[in-house]
């Protein structure tokens, strides 16, 4: 530093400060600014639009990857009754909840659409060892609807895309790839946070209603075992947190509720 003249020192301060501020602004924008704006924008989206999105998504899924369910009607009705009870007890959002069953290419999965349509795959119903495990999944999906995750996800993706394009401007192919990588990384981080929030919601209700959260890790483990995708330790590009993180989060939630009691 002592070898530098005044001009060089000033340039150094400007450079260091600029880098520091750019990193801070980017970090805070992506992890504080965009989630805040997302929440505010999601609050003003009209319900009619949310319903349309729900209908269009279901139609598209039915055309592409979902097939009519093979679960017998009696079992479907039993689960719909359980679902309605859960909704009556735990739903506060202005949504019309519907539970539907679909065959999903041997995938054990469940999906919540923004207006309250929840899809359970045949495989998930089949691999569940008891109704408690299905209740855990349904609560997780109800949490997605209650906390408006579908709409928030859509808004945050759009905001992220606009912000990165705005910040980087007209970029080269390599820059474009890097930007897309950054978008993917940040989006999946948002998505993992959403999953953890929904697990927490489900765990809290399971604990309050049934005094035990084990059905949630149990069904998550069964889904993970059934999945063809390998469970990896590095999950920064996964839309869902890895099984271990989710189970740990459920344990933490359970501990918290016990401590509060």
């Amino acid at each position, binding site marked *: 530093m002592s070898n530098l003249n005044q001009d060089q020192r000033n340039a150094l301060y400007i450079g260091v400060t600029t880098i520091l*501020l750019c990193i801070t602004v980017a970090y805070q924008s992506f992890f504080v600014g965009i989630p805040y704006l997302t929440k505010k924008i999601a609050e003003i989206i009209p319900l009619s639009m949310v319903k349309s999105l729900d209908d269009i998504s279901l139609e598209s899924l039915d055309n592409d990857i979902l097939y009519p369910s093979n679960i017998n009607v009696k079992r479907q009705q039993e689960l719909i009754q359980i679902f309605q009870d859960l909704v009556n007890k735990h739903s506060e959002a202005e949504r019309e909840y519907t539970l539907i069953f679909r065959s999903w290419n041997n995938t054990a999965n469940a999906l919540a659409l923004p207006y309250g349509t929840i899809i359970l795959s045949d495989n998930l119903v089949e691999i569940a060892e008891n109704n408690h495990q299905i209740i855990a999944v349904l609560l997780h999906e109800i949490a997605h609807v209650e906390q408006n995750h579908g709409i928030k996800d859509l808004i945050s993706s759009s905001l992220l895309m606009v912000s990165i394009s705005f910040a980087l401007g007209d970029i080269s192919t390599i820059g474009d790839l890097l930007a897309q990588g950054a978008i993917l990384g940040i989006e999946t981080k948002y998505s993992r946070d959403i999953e953890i929030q929904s697990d927490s919601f489900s765990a809290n209700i399971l604990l309050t209603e049934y005094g035990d959260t084990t059905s949630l890790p149990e069904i998550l483990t069964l889904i993970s075992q059934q999945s063809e995708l390998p469970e990896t330790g590095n999950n920064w590009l996964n839309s869902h947190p890895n099984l271990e993180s989710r189970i740990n989060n459920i344990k933490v939630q359970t501990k918290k509720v016990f401590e509060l009691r």
Partner: protein
Amino acid sequence: MNINELKIEEERLRADISKLSLVDKKLYYQIEQQLIKDPDTYAVLNWFLPAGIHHFYLGKSIRGLINVVLMLLGLFTLDSYGVLIIIGILLIELPQLFKSQSIVFEYNNNVMKTALKKVQNKSPYV
């Protein structure tokens, strides 16, 4: 000082510089060239982020550092009172963007005065 007063001051200084000998003039311009600042660069640094880096450009490191620390504090506390801090910095710093021409003009006049004094004190030819 407003821009007209600064222009008059600059003309007066230029008149003094013109009275220097050729050798002193050369020396004077060598010093001036190193220290003179560009108002547009100052404005761009001010506009870029209201964080005080334009103060570093004019060598006001302490003022720049205070601004940067406040700005970072504001950014890290965005979810509580951070927005107020950033608005506060904006309110203080933004007028300087509009006055950037006269601020740098005044700075450059002071540079000219200092350079002239240095040359005059060194030179036996004045």
